Every structure is written in structure tokens, then in C-alpha cells.
């Protein structure tokens, strides 16, 4: 799309990558993303097709799995979200439609959601101010996925590493509201100036 006269714009009007003692925040939008749902009776064939194409096993419970240049996130019963960097005009909708034709319904979600990365030792404390689920390392952990809400905004979230780093994906239109809440939660968590 390099030839196009249209340039993408960020969904965030004021959220910049931010790093504070104990916590870092980064909006992420430069990805291609597609959701796909298994056709009736096609679950095993779909899993095999994904295994064949990407060398990973589709998670059957709220987990994510990292393949070669692609991540699959559980999105509900028999549904997944595939995410990849948006390089060389990669378009997962097109790519997956070829690889799982007749096995799953594929829908482009590259623009439907945006992702915010929250990382650092204070991440759990900050997120607890809006996310109602248990993010303790013993119950959530690296590659765990949850569909829930953060400050009344629906999110799909997963843990990337043990820093801990979390990523929260929300519908694009909520980006500013989410950022507003997140920054308030961060400000009330990092030690205040006396």
C-alpha cells in the first residue's frame, strides 16, 4: 500500500510510549490481525492446517501460542486471533483465507482493535485498578489469555513475558478512553512526589 495516497493514523490521540520507574507503556498498532472461527466439524482439520503452515498447535483454552512470525490468541470456543507484524504489506486475512479455506471463517481485524503493552514490576498493581481478574503469576502467567474488561472497556489480554509484560487489545474507538484510565492508574501507583 506504499503507493496509496492514504496514510494510516493512530487511534490514540495522546498516548505515547512512556517509561516510569517500575512501569512502561506502549501503544501498538502496526500489526496485521485476523480472527478465524472453525467451521462446524472442521476443528481438527483446521488445527492440522495451522500446524502444517505455522508449526504450532492452536490453543484450545485461554492461551496464546507463538509461531514463526505469528501469534495465535484464543478468542473463545473454536475461535482465534492471529497477529503478525505489518511488514511487507503482510495481510493475515488474505494469508489465512488461503491456508484454511473451507475450514474456518476468516475476518480482517487489523483495524478493529489496538493494543497497549503494559510492562514492569508495577504492571499487576496498575492493572488491578481496572481489570477484575487474577493476574498473579501462579494463576495467569506467561502466554495466559483472558477476555475480560478493563475499566468497563472490553479487552482481550495476554501475558507476554515474566517482566511481567501484558498486552491488552481493545476496540479501536475506546483507545483514548482506555489510555485516559491507564494513565490515571499509573499516576496513582508510581510513588508520588512528596
Amino acid at each position: 500500500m506504499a503507493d496509496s495516497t492514504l496514510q494510516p493514523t493512530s487511534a490514540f490521540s495522546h498516548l505515547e510510549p512512556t517509561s516510569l520507574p517500575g512501569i512502561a507503556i506502549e501503544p501498538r498498532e502496526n500489526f496485521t490481525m485476523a480472527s478465524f472461527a472453525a467451521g462446524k466439524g472442521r476443528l481438527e482439520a483446521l488445527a492440522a492446517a495451522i500446524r502444517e503452515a505455522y508449526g504450532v498447535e492452536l490453543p484450545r483454552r485461554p492461551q496464546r501460542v507463538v509461531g514463526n512470525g505469528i501469534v495465535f490468541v484464543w478468542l473463545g470456543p473454536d475461535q482465534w486471533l492471529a497477529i503478525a507484524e505489518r511488514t511487507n504489506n503482510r495481510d493475515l486475512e488474505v494469508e489465512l483465507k488461503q491456508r484454511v479455506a473451507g475450514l474456518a471463517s476468516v475476518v480482517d481485524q487489523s483495524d478493529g482493535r489496538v493494543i497497549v503493552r503494559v510492562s514492569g514490576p508495577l504492571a499487576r498493581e496498575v492493572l488491578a485498578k481496572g481489570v477484575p481478574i487474577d493476574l498473579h503469576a501462579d494463576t495467569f502467567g506467561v502466554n495466559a489469555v483472558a477476555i475480560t474488561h478493563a475499566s468497563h472497556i472490553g479487552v482481550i489480554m495476554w501475558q507476554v513475558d515474566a517482566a511481567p509484560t501484558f498486552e491488552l487489545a481493545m476496540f479501536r474507538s475506546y483507545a483514548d478512553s482506555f489510555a485516559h484510565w491507564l494513565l490515571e492508574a499509573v499516576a496513582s501507583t508510581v510513588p508520588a512526589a512528596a
Partner: protein
Amino acid sequence: MARPANSPSRDPLQPQRLSNGGLVDRSRTIEFTFDGRTYKGHPGDTVASALLANGIVLAGRSFKYHRPRGIISAGSEEPNALLELRTGARREPNTKATVAELFDGLEATSQNRWPSLDFDVMSVNSLLSPIFVAGFYYKTFMWPAKFWEKLYEPAIRRAAGLGRAADVADPDLYEKVTAHTDVLVIGGGPAGLMAALAAARSGKRVVIVDEQAALGGRAIDDAATIDGRPARDWVRAAEEELAARPDVTILRRTAVFGTYDGGTYAAIERVADHLPQPKDHHPRQRLWRIVAKRAVLASGATERPIVFGDNDRPGVMLAGAVRSYINRYGVVPGDNVVVFTNNDYGATTVTDLIRSGANVVALVDSRPKPSETVSRIASATGIKLLNGAVVTRAFGKKRVSGVTVRTQTGAEVKLLCDLVAVSGGWNPNIQLTTHLGGKPAWNDRLQCFLPGALPPSMSLGGSVAGDFSLHKALSGGAAAGASAVALEGAKPITIVVPQAADESDAITPLWRVEDHAGKAFVDFQNDVSDKDIELAEREGFRAVEHLKRYTTLGMATDQGRTANVNALAIMAEITSRTIPQTGITIARPPYVPVALGALAGHHRGKSFKPTRLPPSYKWAKEQGGVCVETGLWLRPSYFPRKGEKDWLDTAKREVNTVRSAVGICDVSTLGKVDVQGTDAGIFLDRIYMNNLKSLPIGKARYGGMLREDGVLFDDGTIARFGDHHYFITTTTANAVRALQHMEYCSQWLWPELDVQIISATEQWAQYAVAGPKSRELLQKIVDPAFDISDAGFPYLQVGEITVCGGIKARLFRLSFSGERAYEIGVPARYGDALMRKLWEAGREFGACAYGTEALGVMRIEKGHISGPELNGNTTPHDVGLGGMVSKTKDFIGRVLGARPGMLDPNRPSLVGFRPVDRSARLRSGAHFIAQGVEATAENDDGYMTSVAYSPSNGHWIGLGFLKHGPSRIGEIVRAYDPVRGGDTLVEVVKPVFVDQEGVRVRG
């Protein structure tokens, strides 16, 4: 009265401050004001302990009689010492002086007095007290109602209102946090600390919560000894051990106020109430939702007073509170003290008083014989012991100056004193066990209610379980903590319970002193006396719930924690029943008052709900677009230009531009759902009322969804992109519900169908491009490979195309305005850029941007239904879509929609209206009445749902539901609107005001 000769030297500025002891930091002195005068205190004080250190007991006036009232307790049960703290926007009324921590510069003001605490005009109510008895509100103000509204209520509020709320917005932040834990320990006293230690040592996750700034509970209040050391040393060690564990959270200044299903507890943390103002960006209070697999309730117990004459005189204080002030705060609240008790624990107060240098005038013990504990105390201290005696009345006005005691022989003696330490026994703090309906159980030996059936996964430790001695509290807490983690799968570990005294809990009930003179208060905060309970009984309000409502007992901010059991016991006495026969006390959340701001947390003001911004929002704001909330969305409603005097002016111009040239509108907020699968067509046929089987690939069709009861639920378009691929739109308002409905149908009703439903609302930025020049404009955007001529892209055509040099896009030839129109969708990240491109390209065609106002006008001009017509009452027939309803297939709403009542021509159905006097304005909500009949409900023929000024017609137009509407075209009826004084003659017309033949959409 003189200070006792043995009193140690004290700070002249804080005459009642002891030279040592307590948790206050004497190395720092801080200043505060009370009713404008400056006093001194120390960090670690509460406002109450600092006032007492300054010799002040009088803290306020009572609610009904405006009697002088003093500090009674040392905790959150305080009924009397309610102050206004701070000034300006942070002014907060009804703050308990016994809980509020002192800080430098604190401004405190007494309440409920006018003009001053010393001299209160309304205390004349005391003289009128015969008319202020229980039920007085009901009896006096029953009639007439308008007097109540105009006269009585404002007068009462002025005279009685406890405190004034700040009159400007709360400047502070609040937040809500969710915590998950294996074990929640409620209470940081000896039992709670032992429970937390036992649980934490097993490696489980523990949250321990305590209301006070310092942990330790009554071990600190009573200056107890644990393992041969002062309890405070043991508490500090326990605290350090807990703090060192990563999976233990200690929440101080935090009160659990509610028990909810599923092991969920609500707690309020006073993060910054002990500071002049919260730290930057930090909250004042934090609401905790704690989800706990197990809970140990170690909430302690609350002492109850004994009801005797004028027992509300300032200086009559709970014995346990006297010990708290001495041992926790280093303050002795009086110099010459009468201790009045019915139990051994109360008697121990003597020891603390003597140690503090106070003179104990007498120990008045209502029990006929001295117990072992009492004998030991009396012989060790040499104080005067009066057994079998009772205090019948306190005297003194703003401060108690003495008491009358009736001795065992019946003789009355007067004792001079400035403090009466009273103990009527202890009520375990069982409230959190009753929030889910658990009924407490009366214990005769301990003379108190203990928790009955506990909420699932809760156990008890310490005095809430009736284990009043320190030894029992420590061992009970340890056992509760250990068994809680064992139930969560922890390996058993050995817990060594520290050594502590096993004090006597002996008690002989005494609720109120017989034949007392003066007023004897049961509920101090609501001014309910024993006479009020007698009156309630005489008038038949014997059940606890009736007693409570009749007298207002227990209904104040202290939840009657010092009053309820006493009242119940007095009612039992009067009616010659036992206490359990008389009733039980069940509490509801919140256990302590909670600021509304804390319940809202982040979600107040503009953050009350999240806001959704459409893709062109930034551009619209740059253009001066005025945005309105539609659901969570913020959508431009109109784009005013210079010289336009109001929204109507602007909307007229926008409509005229669309109808004569071209306009652009962001319609991305419509719900969009991608439906795929080999059975997608069958599925859609079952959820829409109209036939979709015949919809060809590359075409769109209008469709309606019904509820199963036959009422219209939503409408939108269905586009078909492939054999098994559809893309539907829903209204903005129903986007979430429609998806939910579709998932219900696919998962529950017809799980055998192969259909996949995925929301795509936010993937696409979608713009309506409408007007005679819309195609010309789009030709500047759409890549040349795509034919969008009328032949190549006729009305209702849909297609996947590219725009602006290869951006994937979807084009729909749909029209809501009635003009030639398209909807063009691009991936949302290009939404802003596409809008700017359309705007630029539209300049040569005189394009405008239009908002929801113009959109609304144009749909009314075309008679398209929207929210006001899809109002949850209307059927397809009502809105003129009866012809669309399929008769050949099953679909949701088919059977019940075909009931005779749903098809009755008598039902009001959709028609258009125009005023006979073309200059008249129409209003939605007006009811239709035939001419020449009276405007009554029986003659109501329907109502106006939508109105607009139609620029295309030059007058107001309306849509509405009229009985037999379609057969009344041409009739003149009244649009009757008594609420707004409207009564307009309108002509019934077809619900289409522009392009009746519908040719424009086809170009």
C-alpha cells in the same frame, strides 16, 4: 474537682496527656483547631484522643434534642463525636472524631448546634421532648401533605440536619481495585494477626485488613503482655514477618464493609484521610473488591453501654474506650473516675486508670458478689468497691460532675467524678456474617449474639467467635488461619501459639437500670431512649424490624452498633420474653459509611462511562462539528458555519446541500457483523422476518429482526459477498444486543447450523456519501479499475473495491436520505485520511459534512423508521413493513407476531403529519385526537414519534402512530400536547415527504 495528688507531671498544653505510653509520637507536636480554637496533639492521635488530651469531652449536640454529647468510644462505633472536618471543597460532615487521624493544621468543627456548641438555641427541644418521642415524625407530619413539603421538612432539616455537605464538587480522586487472595483476614487484632501468620507461613496468599492506622487491636488497647513482652512488640514482629512475605498484603485504615456471594468482599481504604490532602494524582480513598477463597473473620467485638439516667452526659464513656485512650494514645480522659460494670473485663479498667495516675472514685459492679477478678483488682488497688450497686443517674450538663449510685441496700449515694467508665458487656462484630442472611445465635453464658450459619468459606477467630480472652483469641486465630489454608490444599504446619493471659469473661446481664431518673438513651445518635422503646411496645411495634423503623433506632450512620442489642434486651424485658424470642439483629452493607466518590472510582464526571470516538472524530472537531453522545459514541450532530444562528439553521443547510449536491456523514457507528459458514443463509433467514434466500451475491437488502413475541427489535441491511459470506449492519443503538441475539440463536436455538458470527463494527470506517453528485465525488476516490456507473453499480449493489491507489474498501449503494447515495468503508486506520480525501475531492461539488441532525431530518422526510419508532412496542405492520414479513418460512417472531392482536388494524400505525397552519411547530410526544371529540384517554388515537423541520417542504413534518392510520390519509386531527400546552391541527399524510416515487435513489 482537683487532680489526684499522685498524678504525674503532665504537659500543661495537653493536660490529660500522659508522659509516656501509647503509640503517639511525642517528639512531634502538631496543631489543629476545634471550633476555631487552636489545640495541640501528636502524630498518632485521632481527633478524639487529641481533644481528650486537651481536656475536651464535649464534641457535639444530639440529633433531636440537641443535648450536649461527648466522646463515647474510641472506634468506628462512635455515635456522638461526629465532626465536620476541613473546609471548602474538602469539607466533610459526620466524620467520626474517634476514627479521624490528626494532622497538622486540621480544622474540625462541631455539628448540629447553633449558634455555638456551648449555647445551642435548639436545645429547647429538650424541653419539648414529650412531643419528640418515637414515631413523632409519623404522627406530627402525617397531614396535610403540602405542609410537610413546604414547612415541616425544611424546618426539620435546618434544625436537625447532622452536618453540611460541601457545596462544591469533590476535588479528590478515588479508585477501585480488585484483589484476589487465598485467605482474607478481616481484622488485625491478636486473632487476625495469628490467622494471617498461620496462613502466610503455609505459603498461601493472604490479605489482612484492619480499620485502624496501627495493627494490634485490643492487645494494644489493653496494654496486654504476649510471650512476656508488651503486646506491641509482638505485634510489631508479626507485622514485620507478614510484610516480608511477597504474597501478603497488609491493608491498614481499611474497613471491610460488605460480604457478597462467591467469596467477594468490599472494603474501603482511607488512603489519604489522615493527610491534609491526598498526594498528587493519588486517591483519597480506595474501594477494594477482594475475591477470597477463604475468609477469617477476626473483627473483634464492640462494647455496649448500660442504659441509666442521663447516661449521655459528656464524660460517660465506654470502659474499653477509656483503656484505649490510656494505652493506645497516652491520654487519660478524666481524673476522678467511676467505673460502672456488669462484667469482669470492664472491671480491669480500674488497673489502667490507677496506673495512669487517675483517682478511681469507686468501682460500681452490678453483680451482688465480687468475682475473683474484681476481688483481686480491689485488693491490689485499694479502691472503693460497690457490689450489687448501680449508677442510676449522671449529673452535670456539658460534662459529667457526678453520679447517683443505688447501693445493694437500696441507699442512694452521690459520687463526684469527671468520668464514668461504663461496660455493659461486649457484642461480637458479627455484621459481616449476616450480610448474606446468616442468622446470629444468642449465647446465654456470654450474654451476646454469636455468628450463626456462616457465609460459605468464612471462619471465625477471636472475640467475634466469643473468645474474649487474649489467650483464646491468639489460639482461635491460629486455628482459623491454619484450617483455612488446609482447606485450600496447604500442607499442615505447626503453629506455636504465644503465651498470653486467659482473662475471665464472666458477666451477669444488666441492660438498663430500673427506676432511673432523667432520660436514659439507648441509641445516642438518633436520640432514642428507653421510654421510646416502651412507647413502641405499647403501640404494638414489638418486632425488632418494627421497633427499628418506629423509633429510628439503629438507623443512623453508626448502624446502631452500641444500641441494637441493648434495645432488643430492653424490649425483651418489657415483654417478658427472652432475647432470642424477641428477635435478632441482621445487618446489611455497608458496615461503615462509604463515600459515593469511592463507589464511582475513576468513573465520574466525563469518565462516568467510557467514550467511543468514530474514525473521523478528530477531523470533525477541526471542522467545528458539534458532537453529541449517542450511547457511548460521541458523534457530530451538525457542522455550524459562520452566520448560522442555531443548529436548525445548520441542519437546514446540510439537508439542502445533500438534496442538491452531495454530503458526507460518518456512519461507522452502525453495528457490523460478519456472518459466514455453509448455513449462513439459512441462519439469516431465521433471524430476519423477510426473505433473504433470494438475495444474490453482490447485492444488499433491507431487513428487520423481530423479538420472539413479534415486536420489531432492530433493522438494518444484509449484504452478500459470497456463497457463504454475508455482512450485516444493525442500528448503532442495538449493535451489542443484536450480536448477543445472533449468538443466542446460533449457540442455543440452532447449534446444528454451520455459521460463524464475528463482530466487525470497528474494523471499518464507513462514510455515507449522499446526494445527486455523490457518484462524481466517489469517482475521484475509487480506483479506476472499478466501474461505479449506474449500469455497473446500480442501487443496492455492493462490492469489494480499492480506493486511493490500492487501499481495500467496500462499497455499498444504500440510501437513508432518499438521494443517490453510497456507503464506503475502508480499514479504520485509514478512516481519518479518507475523510480528509473526500472533503478535499468534494470541494468542487460544493460538498458538506453532515451530522446526526441532518441525518435525522432526511430519514423523517423519507419516512424511514428509527429509534422512536423501534420503541419496543411496535410490530412490522405498525411501521408499514407488514408486506415484508415472510409467510413461507420459520423465523424469530413469526408465530407470536401473527397473533390477531398484533395484526389488528385498530393498532396505531405509521403515517406522516403536516401542520394545517404551515408555520406551526410540531412536537413529538403529542397525542392524536379526532376533531370534535373530547381530549380524553379513551379518545386517544395514537402519538407523534418523530418531528423535524423539513427544509425540502419549508415547514414542520412528523411521523407517528395513528389508529387506522393508512386509511385516514387526508383527515385533519388534533396533535394534543397538554404537557407543553400544544394543540395543533395536523393533516394525516403518507409517511414520505420527499420524492414520493423513490426515483432519486436510483440516480
